[in-house]
């Protein structure tokens, strides 16, 4: 009596196993492949030097900071980024500034590096591969990646800006530095994401 009614159900289960992945599954699979790509990150800076931070056992993580040469909010943070970059380079979390735009030439980036006395490696991302890999949307946006390629923090560098045109005299919360601290200590990042504020990254072809 029961047998005939189970058969179609079974068929359905079998069919669903063979069927293409659902959207959610597909996304998690591509996120998994992105994670793996992030764990084997290779970056070429504007002077042509290649960086493979996770090949060094000393690297506890990596901070990618999406920046722009013309975004005033991103530019305001350059002195802070040089300070943090120098500090965390020594403590095993190298910083990289990523310029994700198909309109920026190497010459534009070199001019920016010179004007803003940038010490942190400047990475051109004309193909916007790095932006896609990390789903960055804004400049400045900080993304801290651990050795497994997991994104442990994304968002603001600190709370200097409370909104467009709303600048504090000084920052009182230092999200990026705190996240690096946690990744370096192997503890949980207390604030794993904040909403970045600045200029939007324009994805090519969109």
């Amino acid at each position: 009596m029961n047998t005939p009614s189970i058969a179609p159900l079974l068929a359905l289960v079998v069919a669903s196993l063979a069927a293409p992945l659902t959207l959610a599954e597909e996304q998690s699979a591509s996120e998994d492949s992105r994670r793996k790509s992030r764990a084997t990150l290779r970056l070429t800076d504007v002077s042509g030097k290649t960086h493979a931070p996770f090949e060094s056992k000393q690297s506890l993580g990596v901070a990618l900071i999406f920046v722009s040469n013309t975004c005033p909010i991103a530019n305001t943070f350059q002195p802070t980024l040089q300070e943090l970059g120098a500090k965390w380079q020594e403590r095993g979390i190298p910083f990289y500034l990523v310029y994700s735009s198909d309109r920026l030439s190497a010459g534009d980036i070199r001019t920016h590096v010179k004007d803003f006395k940038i010490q942190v490696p400047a990475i051109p991302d004309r193909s916007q591969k790095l932006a896609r890999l990390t789903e960055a949307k804004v400049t400045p946006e900080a993304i801290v990646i651990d050795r497994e390629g997991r994104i442990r923090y994304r968002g603001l560098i600190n709370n200097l800006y409370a909104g467009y045109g709303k600048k504090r005299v000084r920052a009182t919360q230092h999200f990026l530095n705190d996240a690096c601290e946690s990744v370096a200590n192997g503890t949980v990042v207390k604030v794993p994401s904040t909403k970045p504020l600045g200029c939007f990254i324009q994805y090519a072809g969109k």
Partner: protein
Amino acid sequence: MNRFLFCTLLLLNFASAGEPAKVDFATHIAPIVHSKCSMCHRQGQPGPFELLSYDDVRERGLTIQAVIHDRYMPPWKPVNEDVEFAHDRRLTKAEIRLIDEWIDAEMPAGDLSRVKAPDYSSGWALGKPDAILKMNGRFMVPASGRDVYRSFVFEADFPEDKWVKAVELRPTARGAVHHALFFVDTSGEARSRDGQDGKAGLSGMSFLRQGGDRQRGSLRTRSGSSSTSGVRGLGGYVPGAMPNKLPGDLALPLPKGGDIVMQTHFHPSGKVEYEQAELALYFADRPPARQIVPIQLPPLFGRLAGIDVPAGESDFEIRESFTLPVDVEAVQISGHAHYICREMELTATLPGGTKIDMLSIDDWDLDWQDNYQFREPVMLPAGTRLDARLMYDNSAENPENPHSPPRRIKWGRESTDEMGSVTLQVVAKRSSDRIKLQQATRQLITRSFSKAVPRGTDRARGGNIRGQILDGRLIQLLDRNKDGKLQKTEIPQRLQERFLSIGDTNNDNVIDEQEIKRALSALGGTR
């Protein structure tokens, strides 16, 4: 329009009614961007990037969308709608909707050959200037750190009186300049203090002789004071503001030999920048038939308005009222305050009871201090009451609070102190009424002095300050170096704060002759 064309258009309209209208850059977006953004977002102007071509705008599409919805761009602080302003940069709701639709449609270009870029070939927005002055010295703006306030001198040195229709600034530290205000200095003091600390310019504003310039120029004595509220301004500069020529034959005086001083506010931009601005001047051919009279409420940038905001207080208010003694035409309006001011408004109540919102700013921002010219002069009859109100938020919730945790904030010239006033620039409808109007604005200052020193309250504290200041002999006694001024060191310690708070209107720790005279007359003395 001929009827045939009209019918064709009507038909076309019907034909396209079924499908949503296509928004493209060439047809819809370029005209908005070119009229509201490009004057500032172009080469040589303070906008951080250009917004002229399709590629410029497409690259920034999402950012543009974010900042226009935030009302951060185009920068325009007034929200009042009773009056119309000239060169209003606000986007209309329809314009914002068009931009939204364009971005949703993935920013199509349209027929780019039809785009006509605005002509900026002359360089200066108002065309060829009558004179171009260069700032004395070059000032280094650091890459980071606190905001910098500094004043710079432009040696004007004209051999005769000039009448200024407009000024236009071309700063070199474009990323760092957030605003500048221009003042005339006829005392030569700014020039003599320029560069004394080893850097171009001077700190603070103490060169301003409030209401009492030493008379180097002849203009002042001939035509009477034009600075009844104490400061002779020549307007200001904020990124994004188009310079305006004063309407009609109106012009502001620049007495012969006078210098122009630019008080500048810099925001470090992330890189070292150097400021050595050029200032273009546009003159009128002849003196105006009628002169502009500034009505500053409260006067002296709120010096005597009791600005003393307790830490944590989020709704601290100051008010000032002034009744017009004569018929006037209001030409333009501006405000001044520092970081913690949140709201600022000036309302005119006409004798019949009609209220006109002349200026209303609900989210004051120190960075965008503009001077707003009315599209048409606003007629205000005698008996109109002007009410100014400024609100300060000294709570920790105010992100622009310069102190964390909040601290008590009083009136002062540092940017972390506060000031506050709204200035309405008017002309008396009948030129013969000007003197009466100026007298009334002077009386307002006098009343403010009197209110600041209530009668009798000082005796209990061991000294009748009113009496002591009134007593010219006391000043003679204290003036040990006999220079006619009271230096801080000459004032007994227990009286220093009170004396300086009353007499030292320009905050330079000296009560000079003009300040003594002013204090004496304000406190009811006749000498």
